[in-house]
């Protein structure tokens, strides 16, 4: 019954993990990135595409000084930085490090200039040294969950005798150390702190608050059950089964794939994928040990594993395919995005792994059945499998640093906000990239009420490229906003936009601003 209670706790932990969507991306900011203002703004607002938790958010003024008197406030999807009144003229930088709902940190910076732009250096906010360690602990955690827990499960349920116990125990130990290290490093990454800050409570506290916190706690608990399964022989079967469930839950509690919508599909898929991987990879080390040892006893174990392996591979393929389709959204993303390239490499290694598995299943295992002394080719082949599997784990651990194409913001319209005392124009440009774009002009009075214009005209130019004024009349839509469709933005770069709103026959309000058009 104690096992049942443990399972219930694991289940509660995963269910209480907050619903999440994807990596957060900065959708807009006020003032916008690169804005040149006549006077310092009272506040800087960063708007994200989802609710975020503020990690390290800094204001660096034009004098290059880190302003510790700038208060940071997180409100749902926005992070608001109160700008101190004595901001010097020139370019200031707001660097941010926020935590997505999926627990991953997202970092970036925006600049704005008071008066005229100056050469203020953006601080280096990438912690490359820590990144390496984060990757290493991720690989270590996978080793613990798959080789460790999977190994414990294999010797208890399939081999039904102890084999490679030292390797399994070592993997479990590495897993625990890596899980703990992963938690602390996550905190350091979020706060932008050096390695020495691991001795303080702050990184640990903030990491526990992210979705990675519960995930790693479940992993540590599962690894504990795995260690217990190796120590307590009598209850080994039940303990290793609980550990296996815990490994699946730990993976399903956090990460890109598990938090992709629809979660009713992705979370179970990640769970099954994780359990499948553990079943397969966990078998490799004990199988080699058994084949090297007593050759005669090896055959029934190999046959038992062979029977289990077929449905496991089917489940792995099905869940992997499902998750890949949800994450990638298109075939092109396989080669066009970092996330997709990693997946492509992984699939290449998986193909090798499957080839070796097929060789073992259809050639080497029958050979072993015919001649008990034919164990050496099979064990050598499984050793290659181990290498391929390790390759996959090291590649997959890099996903920690790449947002999936699903969460990138290709279709979010470009938003430009132009504000004077008299009027406030919000301009949405979709898709905001080179090609044919549509503009929505939301014209408001200085107090935010709708501005009733007789006509609205959009004029675009790009003086740097010799593109003279492109003038287009707006059409008032039923939403009260002015729409301009099919505007050709032929080249990427900084465009100039002027909006003339005719208020009376003899009076118009003209606002101008620059905006950046991306390629693709």
């Amino acid at each position: 019954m104690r096992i049942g209670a443990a399972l219930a706790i694991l289940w509660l932990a995963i269910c209480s993990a907050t619903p999440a969507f994807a990596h957060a991306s900065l959708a807009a900011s006020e003032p916008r990135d690169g804005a040149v203002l006549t006077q310092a703004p009272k506040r800087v607002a960063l708007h994200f595409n989802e609710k975020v938790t503020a990690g390290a958010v800094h204001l660096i003024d034009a004098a290059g000084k880190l302003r510790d008197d700038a208060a940071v406030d997180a409100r749902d999807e926005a992070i608001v930085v109160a700008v101190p009144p004595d901001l010097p003229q020139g370019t200031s930088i707001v660097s941010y490090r926020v935590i997505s709902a999926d627990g991953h940190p997202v970092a970036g910076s925006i600049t704005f200039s008071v008066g005229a732009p100056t050469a203020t250096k953006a601080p280096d906010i990438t912690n490359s040294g820590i990144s390496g360690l984060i990757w290493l602990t991720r690989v270590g955690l996978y080793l613990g969950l798959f080789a460790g827990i999977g190994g414990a499960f294999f010797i208890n349920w399939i081999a039904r005798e102890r084999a490679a116990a030292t390797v399994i125990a070592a993997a479990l130990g590495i897993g625990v150390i890596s899980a703990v290290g992963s938690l602390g490093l996550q905190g350091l990454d979020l706060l932008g702190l050096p390695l020495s800050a691991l001795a303080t409570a702050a990184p640990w506290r903030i990491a526990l608050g992210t979705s990675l916190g519960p995930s790693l706690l479940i992993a540590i608990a599962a690894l504990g059950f795995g260690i217990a399964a190796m120590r307590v022989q009598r209850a080994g079967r039940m303990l290793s089964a609980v550990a296996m469930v815990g490994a699946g839950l730990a993976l399903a509690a956090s990460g890109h794939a598990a938090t992709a919508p629809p979660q009713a599909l992705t979370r179970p898929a990640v769970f099954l994928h994780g359990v499948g991987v553990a079943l397969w990879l966990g078998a490799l080390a004990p199988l080699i040990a058994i084949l090297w040892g007593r050759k005669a006893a090896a055959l029934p174990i190999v046959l038992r594993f062979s029977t289990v392996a077929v449905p496991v591979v089917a489940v792995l393929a099905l869940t992997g395919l499902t998750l890949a389709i949800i994450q990638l959204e298109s075939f092109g993303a396989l080669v066009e995005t970092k996330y997709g390239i990693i997946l492509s490499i992984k699939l290449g290694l998986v193909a090798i792994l499957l080839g070796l598995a097929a060789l073992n299943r259809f050639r080497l295992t029958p050979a072993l059945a015919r001649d008990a002394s034919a164990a050496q080719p099979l064990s050598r082949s499984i050793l290659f499998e181990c290498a391929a599997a390790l390759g996959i784990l090291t590649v997959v651990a890099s996903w920690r640093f790449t947002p999936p194409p699903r969460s990138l913001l290709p279709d979010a319209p470009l938003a430009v906000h132009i504000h004077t005392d008299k009027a406030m124009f919000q301009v949405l440009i979709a898709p905001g990239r080179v090609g044919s774009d549509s503009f929505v002009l939301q014209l408001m009075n200085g107090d935010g009420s709708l501005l009733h214009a007789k006509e609205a005209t959009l004029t675009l130019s790009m003086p740097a490229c010799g593109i003279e004024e492109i003038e287009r009349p707006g059409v008032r839509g039923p939403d009260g906003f002015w729409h301009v469709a099919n505007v050709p933005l032929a080249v990427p770069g900084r465009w100039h936009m002027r909006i003339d709103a005719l208020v009376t026959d003899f009076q118009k309000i003209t606002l101008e601003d620059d905006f950046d058009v991306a390629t693709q």
Partner: protein
Amino acid sequence: MSRSALLSLLAVLAVSPATAHVLLEGKQAAVGSSYEAVFVVPHGCKGSATTKLRVQIPDGVIATEAKPAAGWSVETVRGKYAGEYDYKGAKVSEGIKEVDWSGGKLPDKTRAEFVIETYLTDGLKPDTTLYFPVVQECEEGVSRWIEIPADGAVHSHESKWPAPGVRLTPKP
């Protein structure tokens, strides 16, 4: 000739006709005195003949009297002034706010003048420019000469549709 050079040449040619604006004849006028405003229309709207000219009378300009122009009928729009002014011993608080010439047809590339008599009250600030926004209506299209630079500064050379203006000088 390279394609980009050709394009930029075309761009220059396309822009140049717009450099002639509806203007006020005469560079300056004194506050606290009568002022004859002569509006010069040098061309139509992008090649189309002018059919109507509307002039808005700015605040501080009173006692407006529109001069007839041959072939055109004159209409005026009356309204309240922004304040109350002393004019020839009387207090005036309302009068003409807009003058419209219509019914005529002025072909493109033909110059014409439209004249109004006014009085510039001494509340107007010397050493600033007084702008008369003008709407030129044509057979096809409208040109609105209504852009007024902020802070009473002179027109930046980028202004495409500047309102005609006159520099004010101190009371004689």
